[in-house]
C-alpha cells in the first residue's frame, strides 16, 4: 500500500502538475467559462464553484510569490501537495470505514442505537401505552376466564345435584338397583298358602316403618321390585302374582331401611308376624348386611301427565 502510493502519486502529480504551472492564466478562466453556462443548478453547485473561486487567487498569487525564489518554493510546495494528497486518500479511507461501520451498526442493532433522545422517548411512550393496553386486555381475559371456570364449576355442581336427585328418584321408582342395611323376610307357608292380602299388609307395614326399596322373590319366578304401584294378587294355583310376575312360596322379601324400626313394626301384637302365624305360616326375619335389591323396573313414560313448569 505504501509502496505504490508514491508512484501513483507521481503519476497523478504528473497529470495534475501541468494544470497549474504551464498555463495558469488560461486554465483558471477556462473552467469558469464552462461552469457559468452549465450552471443551470447554481445553488446546488457550491462545491465546484468554491473550488473555482479559490483556485483563481491561488494561481494568481503563486507566480508573484514564486517570482523572487521559485527554486525554494517548489520543493516545499511539492511536499505540501503530497501531504494534501495523502490527506485526501486518508479522508476517503476514513469515509469508507465510517460508511461501513454505519451500515454494520444500522443492520445490527436496528434503528434504536442511533436514534436520538426525543425519538427514544416517543418510542418508550408508545411502548408504555401499548403495555398498558395489553395489561388491560390480560386483566379482562383473566376475568373472563374466571367467570367461565366458575360457571363451569356451577354447572358441575348442578349436574352432581341432578345426578344425586335422579338416583334418589330412581331408587324410589325402582329403576336402579340399591343396597344398604335392612331386613330379609322369608314367608314360609304352612298348610295353606299365604294370601296376597297378608303380603300386602307386610309391605305396607315395612313402608310405614321407613323401608326405602323392596323386592319380592319366590322359589320360582324372577324377583320383583316393589314400588307404590305394585299390585299383589292371589292366583288359582296358590301362587302369588306380584306386579305381573308369578311367584311361588316361600317368598323372600328384601327391604332396605332401618332394621330395628322395621323389625319392631313387624312384631307389634296383631301385626304381620302374628297374622302369618295365624295363617299357619312362619315368618323368618334376619338382617344381612348389606341387603341388595337387584330387581329393577323400566320407567314408565307418562302418556297423559305433563310436568308443570
Amino acid at each position, binding site marked *: *500500500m505504501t509502496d505504490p*502510493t508514491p508512484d*501513483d*502519486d507521481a503519476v*497523478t502529480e504528473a497529470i*495534475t502538475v501541468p*494544470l497549474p504551472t504551464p498555463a495558469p492564466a488560461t*486554465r483558471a478562466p*477556462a*473552467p469558469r467559462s*464552462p*461552469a457559468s453556462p*452549465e450552471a443551470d*443548478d447554481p445553488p*446546488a*453547485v*457550491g*462545491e*465546484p464553484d*468554491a*473550488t*473555482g473561486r*479559490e*483556485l483563481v487567487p*491561488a494561481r494568481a498569487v503563486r507566480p508573484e510569490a514564486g517570482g523572487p525564489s521559485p527554486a525554494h518554493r517548489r520543493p516545499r510546495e511539492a511536499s505540501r*501537495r503530497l501531504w*494534501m*494528497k495523502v*490527506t*485526501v*486518500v*486518508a*479522508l*476517503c*479511507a*476514513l*469515509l*469508507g*470505514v*465510517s*460508511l*461501513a*461501520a*454505519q*451500515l*454494520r*451498526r444500522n443492520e445490527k442493532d436496528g434503528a434504536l*442505537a*442511533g436514534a*436520538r*433522545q*426525543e*425519538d427514544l422517548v416517543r418510542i418508550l411512550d408508545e411502548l408504555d401505552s401499548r403495555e398498558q393496553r395489553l395489561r388491560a386486555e390480560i386483566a379482562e381475559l383473566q376475568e373472563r376466564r374466571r367467570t367461565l371456570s366458575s360457571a363451569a364449576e356451577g354447572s358441575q355442581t348442578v349436574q352432581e345435584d341432578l345426578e344425586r336427585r335422579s338416583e334418589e328418584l330412581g331408587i324410589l321408582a325402582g329403576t336402579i338397583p340399591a343396597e344398604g342395611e335392612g331386613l330379609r323376610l322369608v314367608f314360609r307357608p304352612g298348610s295353606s298358602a299365604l294370601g296376597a292380602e297378608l303380603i300386602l299388609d307386610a309391605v305396607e307395614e315395612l313402608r310405614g316403618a321407613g323401608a326405602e326399596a323392596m323386592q319380592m322373590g319366590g322359589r320360582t319366578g324372577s324377583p320383583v321390585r316393589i314400588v307404590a304401584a305394585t299390585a299383589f294378587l292371589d292366583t288359582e294355583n296358590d301362587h302369588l302374582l306380584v306386579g305381573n310376575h308369578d311367584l311361588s312360596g316361600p317368598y323372600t322379601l328384601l327391604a332396605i331401611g332401618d332394621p330395628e324400626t322395621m323389625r319392631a313394626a313387624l312384631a307389634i301384637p296383631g301385626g304381620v308376624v302374628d297374622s302369618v302365624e295365624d295363617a299357619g305360616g312362619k315368618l323368618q326375619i334376619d338382617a344381612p348386611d348389606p341387603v341388595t335389591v337387584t330387581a329393577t323396573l323400566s320407567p314408565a313414560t307418562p302418556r297423559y301427565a305433563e310436568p308443570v313448569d
Partner: protein
Amino acid sequence: MIPALALIVGVVVGLVFEPSVPTGLEPYLPIAVVAALDAVFGGVRARLDGIFDDKVFVVSFVSNVLVAALIVYLGDKLGVGGQLSTGVVVVLGVRIFGNVAAIRRHIFRA
C-alpha cells in the same frame, strides 16, 4: 484513482473489522457520512471539470463534516435535532444530486 481505491479499501476494512463507533459520536456519524459523501461527489465533479484541488477537497470535506455534525449537535441541544438533521440530509441530498447530474453530463454528454 487512489482516493477511490482508498474508499473501497476503507469499506472493506470497516466491513471486516467492524470498528465500534464511540457512543458520543453515534448520532452524528450518519450525518457526517452524508456530508462527506457530498464532499466526495463535489470532488469527483471538480476532477472531471479539471479544477480539482487537494487542499480545497480536504478543507471542504472536513468543514462539511464538522458543520453537519455541529448543526445536528446544536439541533439536539435546542430540541429540534430530528428536524434539523432531516433538513441537513435534504440539503446535502440536493447537492449530491446536483453534483451527480454534472458528473453524468461529463461522462455521458447528456
